[in-house]
């Protein structure tokens, strides 16, 4: 049933630029002037692509100035790669123009769906891990990578439910998507932690089972806590709190396997003052340096962050 020619090897695509293996921050309009004024030493900034699909005005004015000074990650939240309907070509064309304009070092999207017919649901919704889903997701990623002429990083989801029809476990599913399409992995360590608690998985085992050689970026964020109908802990991927210690620990574990990797601090709610976010990047930078240290004895592969 699967198309054997569908290997997604992107033959025409030149070696893509990559994000520096440092800590980056999600760019928020309320911080942008202070960042431009103070030019802090941040590895990169990330923006949600859809926020910049507007004709003109201050968002573009500011992002142009940020891009002139910093590496940039464009993170899509509306492509609906897991949709059971065809991708929105108008949206894909708009993304292409945006990526051509800003030339970001990275473009990423989610293993999720968010549209249904003409309706945009404004959330990242879960997928059953079946062969049919696998085929659809791979077809959509092939289409995206061909249309955009660049490699996509696919983000692992935070989920609150599973599906009875699933026949793949999540890490194996993602590994197969990466293998078939040649896309990279945006490893959201907070999402691994949240989903592991929510579905009683071993978070370290999940990390080990993912295609770590293809990780192009890591996300870190804070979560909120609820309880499910049995009173068991249910974590919500809220992006509204500092990164939890358990997630820092899982991040350090991950870096021990991957070595240093570009790492984003995501904060979309309860956004603190800029210096607070900047200080949090210091924690990630410290973990990245730590990940370098033992390696530098035997390898010179991590020069970019050891400076």
């Amino acid at each position, binding site marked *: 049933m699967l198309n054997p020619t569908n290997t997604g090897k992107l033959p025409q695509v030149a070696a893509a630029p990559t994000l520096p293996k440092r800590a980056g921050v999600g760019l928020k309009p309320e911080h942008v002037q202070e960042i431009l004024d103070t030019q802090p030493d941040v590895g990169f900034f990330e923006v949600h692509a*859809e926020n910049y699909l507007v004709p003109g005005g201050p968002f573009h004015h500011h992002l142009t100035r940020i891009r002139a000074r910093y590496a940039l990650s464009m993170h899509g939240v509306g492509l609906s790669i897991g*949709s059971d309907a065809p991708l929105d070509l108008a949206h894909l064309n708009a993304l292409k123009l945006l990526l051509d304009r800003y030339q970001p070092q990275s473009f990423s999207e989610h293993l999720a769906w968010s549209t249904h017919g003409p309706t945009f649901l404004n959330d990242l919704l879960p997928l059953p891990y079946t062969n049919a889903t696998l085929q659809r997701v791979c077809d959509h990623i092939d289409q995206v990578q061909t249309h955009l002429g660049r490699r996509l990083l696919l983000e692992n989801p935070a989920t*609150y439910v599973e599906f009875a029809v699933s026949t793949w476990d999540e890490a194996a599913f993602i590994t197969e998507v990466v293998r078939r399409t040649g896309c990279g992995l945006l490893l959201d360590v907070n999402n691994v932690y949240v989903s592991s608690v929510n579905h009683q998985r071993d978070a370290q085992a999940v990390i080990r089972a993912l295609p770590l050689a293809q990780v192009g970026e890591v996300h870190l964020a804070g979560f909120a806590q609820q309880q499910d109908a049995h009173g068991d802990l249910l974590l919500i991927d809220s992006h509204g709190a500092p990164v939890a210690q358990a997630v820092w620990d899982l991040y350090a574990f991950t870096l021990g396997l991957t070595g240093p990797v570009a790492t984003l601090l995501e904060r979309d709610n309860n956004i603190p003052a800029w210096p607070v976010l900047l200080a949090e990047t210091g924690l990630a930078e410290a973990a990245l340096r730590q990940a370098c240290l033992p390696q530098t004895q035997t390898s010179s592969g991590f020069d970019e962050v050891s400076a």
Partner: protein
Amino acid sequence: MSAQSAFAQALLDPALPCPDGLSTWNGSDPAIRFAVYRNNVMVSLMDALADTYPVVQAFVGEDFFRAMARVFAQANAPRSAVMAFYGRDFADFIDTFAPAASVPYLADVARLEMARVLAYHAADVPALDAQALQIALADPHRLAWAWLALHPSAQVITSPFAVLSIWAAHQGESEPSTFDPDSAQTVLVFRNDLAVDMQVLADGAAQFVRALQHGQTLLAAAAQAADLDATFDLTHTLALLLRWQLVTHVTTGDLRHEHTH
């Protein structure tokens, strides 16, 4: 109906049961977990409306606003992943939302707030300078067939209420007691460089702007404005539009002398 159809419908309609086929590791009722998605969607839509309509929210209070936004969002899910312009029809909804009827100008305040968002994100088009316009219009033969293009951020909002004064009173810019909320105002909303600006227009100037935006020639637009408003002053109005950086292009009858910025 596909699984995603059922999931999407249940997300937007809290009266529907949790979709079939969901499972949980501990056998707990998946409805509680599904409710997280339902809540994420609805809260995100209410937050988007609150971002766009802060003065409407200030008028009615957060609790009322969120209840009203929820009713709107349940019937008007976004049609685009570009959320900046979500809720363009919120003012029309407010007009029909009976619990808000006691604040008769609420919908027009909402129209003003959406116009501000549209102006903020409108395309960047450089303004024509006054000298270029003077040169283009110096020849009366060409003036007769001149079209002016206005900046894409420019929008005329007409209200039977003092909608700009009402808005400004909620920014601490003027005392509510210093104006009559029931006196009509027509407001030009636009972006000048990076900042959204708003100016009250006389009836003639408002008609002039609207006519230009509908593709009328300069002279036809001026004639319509003068018909409506005997006090209309073309020179003064053009000077204002130039000062506000709103004239972006002039096309005269002689296309060899087209002037841009």
